[in-house]
């Protein structure tokens, strides 16, 4: 297992490098820069600013400098939010995004797996059909439609929950988390159903059934763990979906998370901020994929690597 982790972390390095360099180059060949405001700056001021942030050097030198600083865990200064470092901005915003994303992931996993398992146990019956149709409908619900809709119904019409910003309690979390979790729930339910339905048809399950072992015991002891392998494989994409969904959810519900910084940063040409967010998200997604592989091994020992 240690070897698996080590190898995966090593292969993650070129992937991360590729995405950093790609984003870096994309940002720089774009027209406009962080110092273009309403009023053009005096040429000397502009030159001084660019020199201060290293923008006067060649592109390859800049990439090299950036990577060097990154290796020390330094994301550099923000070019638009003066006096703020990117690390500082991220440190403030990341907990909000992680809280929303983490809650949504848990809700989607619990709800999705329950729906999927129930449907698989009723495979071929109308409950199965109805649940799977429902799951497909859930996957078709974009967060930017459900977000405003939930805010309208539960916030404005019923007045039960806050629709904008944070408050002291945790009630501000409920609507964003639900909107974010719905499509992921549908996807998890479909995967869990397919996994368990396939597993229940396998020979060793039929053998166990033939020996007269109680259905619930079969489910718990033999079928459940391997049936969840497809769900685990979805962890990486789910993390990516939640992170992107959060961009919209944070905008809709006015929450100070990473997504807003990303879009604002890209529009303002705040190079270090955008690069910081992209790098962090790429690392998170790679980490989630690794995590998924570790869960595979636990769920299905055949997939453990020696």
């Amino acid at each position: 297992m240690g070897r698996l982790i080590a190898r995966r972390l090593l292969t993650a390095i070129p992937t991360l490098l590729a995405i950093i360099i790609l984003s870096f180059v994309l940002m720089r060949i774009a027209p406009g820069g962080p110092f273009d405001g309403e009023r053009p700056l005096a040429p000397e001021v502009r030159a001084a600013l660019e020199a201060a942030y290293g923008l006067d050097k060649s592109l390859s030198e800049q990439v090299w400098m950036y990577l060097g600083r990154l290796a020390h865990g330094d994301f550099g200064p923000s070019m638009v939010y003066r006096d703020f470092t990117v690390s500082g901005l991220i440190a403030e915003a990341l907990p909000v995004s992680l809280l929303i994303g983490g809650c949504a992931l848990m809700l989607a996993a619990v709800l999705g797996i329950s729906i999927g398992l129930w449907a698989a146990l009723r495979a071929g019956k109308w409950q199965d059909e109805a649940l799977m149709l429902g799951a497909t409908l859930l996957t078709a619900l974009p967060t930017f439609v459900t977000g405003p809709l939930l805010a309208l119904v539960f916030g404005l019409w019923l007045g039960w929950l806050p629709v904008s910003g944070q408050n002291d309690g945790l009630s501000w979390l409920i609507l964003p988390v639900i909107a974010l979790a719905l499509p992921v729930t549908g996807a998890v339910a479909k995967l869990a159903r397919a996994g368990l339905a396939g597993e229940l048809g396998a020979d060793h399950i039929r053998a166990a059934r033939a020996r007269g072992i109680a259905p619930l015991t079969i489910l718990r002891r033999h079928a459940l763990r391997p049936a969840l392998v497809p769900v685990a494989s979805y962890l990486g994409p789910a993390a990516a979906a939640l992170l992107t969904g959060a961009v919209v959810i944070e905008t809709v519900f006015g929450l100070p998370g990473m997504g807003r910084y990303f879009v604002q940063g890209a529009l303002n040409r705040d190079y270090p901020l955008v690069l910081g967010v992209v790098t962090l998200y790429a690392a998170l997604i790679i980490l989630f994929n690794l995590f998924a592989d570790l869960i595979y091994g636990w769920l299905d020992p055949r997939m453990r690597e020696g």
Partner: protein
Amino acid sequence: MKPALIIVALIALAALLVPPLLPYDHIAIDWDSVRAGLFTDGHLLGTDDLGRDRLARLLVGTRVTVSVALAAALVALVIGVTWGAIAGWVGGRTDELMMRIVDGLYALPFMFVVILLMVVFGRSILLVFLGIGFVEWLTMARVVRGQVIALKQRPFVLAAEAAGSPARATLLRHILPNVAGVAVAYLMLTVPQVVMIESFLSFLGLGVQEPLTSLGILVNEGAEEMDMHPAALLLPGGVLVALIACLTIAGERFRDRLADAAK
């Protein structure tokens, strides 16, 4: 599969055929009835805060969303089929390398790269679908590669090779036609994905730009006035969800039917 396809066809037909019949187009401003309610004379769905006909905007927005989705899905189809067919056909180290690249790309936060692209290169509609197409070809490549590898072992392909058919002819005449079914199934599943991404970008103001409109833009506008005008959010949102759901259902049924037929 059928009811889902019928709903999609109805939406597409309405978006194509109805706008020319309406008294107003999607950018015409009717100064006499700004913010008209539902079922107002001449404006079936009322007008928005600029006095533009909501029905015309909804239909034109649907049309733009569907065309961008089709174009992007075709880009994904071309790249995915080419990539997957070459990897599967050539095999060996080339295959290994090409599929490693696909695996690597899967791990990237691609939505963010697309957002970057949109911000960076202005927001032309051409770029919207090229960008989305470049993101969505990965699954297609994987599926096509698997199919090509399976086909390579089939007797009729071996027979063609034994009879001296050149590689190019075998690939074009015997392999690709048999990949078509699966490719179409995944094309059908790619379209709703692209609809989702396009609306997402347009919602953030990074996709389709005014005076053109799209379902994402309409949902965004609707969200801003939903307390006064719930229909402004519900209608484009509803059409969007119906499109995505029906396309997904139809695509999945088609894919499952192909898989059953292959057994």
